[in-house]
């Protein structure tokens, strides 16, 4: 496994997995994202983008959730490039 630092969730490519490092920002949105399970250490994956490029469909824990890119930008991740055996 190789790691790449300093990306936001909005920058993931389709099919890519990443580990959440931090939820930036404050207020209601940050609380909601954390409570939906975007806590540091959790794995997320980008499944697809909606027809006009936004919002995103993400896999998180046991479910799929949709966020706009604007909100996904607040989530810092470490991209996890899976090296296939």
């Amino acid at each position: 496994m190789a790691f790449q630092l300093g990306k936001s969730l909005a920058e993931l490519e389709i099919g890519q997995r990443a580990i959440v490092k931090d939820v930036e920002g404050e207020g209601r949105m940050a609380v909601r994202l954390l409570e939906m399970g975007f806590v540091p250490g959790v794995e997320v994956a980008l499944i697809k983008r909606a027809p006009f490029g936004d919002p995103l469909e993400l896999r998180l824990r046991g479910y799929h959730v949709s966020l706009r890119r604007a909100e996904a930008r607040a989530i810092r991740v470490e991209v996890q490039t899976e090296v296939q055996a």
Partner: protein
Amino acid sequence: MSDANQTSLHVAVAGNPNVGKTSLFNLLTHSRYKVGNYPGITVETREGQLRVGPPEGKPITLIDLPGTYSLTPTAEDEAVAFRALTGADGQPRPDAVLLVLDASNLARNLYLTLQIVELGLPCVVVLNMVDLAEQAGVPVDVDALAKALGLPVVPTVARTGVGIEQAAALLRTLGQPTQRAMGGSGGSGGSEIEARVASDPARARWLLAAAEADALELTGASPSERAALVELGPPVIRKAVREQIIARYTEVDRLLAGVIPAERGPRPIWAPAMVVSAKIDRVLTHRILGPVVFLAVMALVFQSLFSWADPLIGLIESAIGWLADLTRSTLGEGAFTDLLTEGVIAGVGNVVVFVPQIALLFLFVGLLEDSGYMARAAFLVDRLMARIGLNGKAFVPLLSGYACAIPAIMGTRTISGFKDRLVTILMIPFMSCSARLPVYTLVIGALFAANERVVGPFTQGGLLLLGMYMLSTFGALGMGAIYKRTLLRSPTPPLVLELPPYRLPRLRDTARHVWDRTADFLRDAGTIILAVTVVLWGLLSYPKVDPETLPAGETAIEHSIAGKLGKAIEPVLTPIGQDWRIGIGLIGSFAAREVLVSTLGLVYGIESDVDDDDTPLREVIRTAKTPEGTPRYGKASGLALMVFFVFACQCMSTLAVVKRETQSWRWPLFMLVSMTVIAYVAALLTFWLAKAFGL
């Protein structure tokens, strides 16, 4: 906790959205419940007796809370759930909580579980959809989960009713004296920071999270609690809230080890429960196919509201007509008969006539919602709706507004956030509903060469009609954007939208939901509509004059109160190219827009109905002359009248429903006044411009 004199145990039913909570509640109560409303807001709770199993011990009342992901009050639903669980608002604190979890999605579901366990209430866990979890390859070890949580756990499949008896039996043991408090793992003592906010650590955590989410106004926090939060300051609060959320998720992950099998080997990118849904989504949220299917689904909804409801509406209208005739022939002519037939029976008709469209819309919305498609629809159109400042969930109600504002406004309940819901409610009456169509057709038919070709196959009539629909659409979108940025200023609601697995809806639940909404309309909005119909009838009929004694060309209606009102407002109508006759029509059309046609018929002494051919009326309007011999209505007047109808809130039923949905007269009044002003100004501009262009 429970009062010794209390005759019934109160059990709150809590859980995330999309976990089958409603089905479970319906099964446990045999769908016999009453719908309650929290004062001032429209979050519903339902209350019913446990009716499964032998009635041993104390009766058990189940209270269905709104489905939420958390108790942190980021919206009304969460605030209602927390306040109900802690016994605020003068309600008793529940004796226990029935937690409904989705077995295939525990890694998120358990977050709410921990929050509720922290409240220290006895909890019983229903692990729903265990079949789907197994199919998805993530079977839950029920005993391990029960042990880890320290709570009794019953596996169920609400769709088929598996496990319902066991769940009911477990609830009944709550009534036994041997009952012990089962709050376990999460009920840790409060931190020092929490202790400074409130003595109860669970409340302190809730208030801290609410403060961080800028939602203290939803908590009913006391002045001393507020002061304590101010003293702590935002950085301390932020850190405490993050720590509390992260600690819960750490606990969730710890609990789940050994409860669900760890994922091994090459894992698919999708969540286990989403493998089948992801395949369906290859079509339904596909870049090109997705929008195509979406348009087809919306076309179906739209078509059903426009035309499938029609035969039923026709049937209701004939039934009402038959009832009126029967009453007339039984009682004979007279003032009382008129009151009954033209006031009361017509009023009942005005109410019942909305039922087919309401039922159809809620049937579709219910099926789309329960199957999981609604979330995909919101996902597809979110980009477009975000431009106005709304989220994707506002789309279906807005579209339904083209058919009828009544069901559309009732359909806004899926929108979270009162301001966003209100913006949508205020936009809907601008959408050109089907009741405006007879008005447009009458005016176009009377004053324009409707069939004259303009470009290609397009006639003057068709283009004018298109113009009115475009004006109404842009009007609605524009007003929405304006309200969102001024009066109801609030940030574009963030989209944190779960895309649940596709599931077959349980039709009995959908049917029950349709019935609940329809009954709600008949009871609350229906009463207002009935009353206003009777009042309008009185205005249009009294004082009575004998038509025989009137000079030629005068009709009884112009001597009525409404007639005098129409004449009184003529000075206001002249600048927009209308006269007192139209004024009477406007007053009458408040009952329903299409009534303009029949009221104008009465003014001109022509007995005609909406459904009847309005050719004689068109003829009269076209040829009507002023005393000076010039045509009474020109093209400019016609355009102005149509534009007025595009924007005006000429519909008491809309106002009645808005009153019902916002729980106050403030917003319907605002709607009536603002829309009338906008309509007047638009009609004025239209009339001037049309005159300036020589029409």
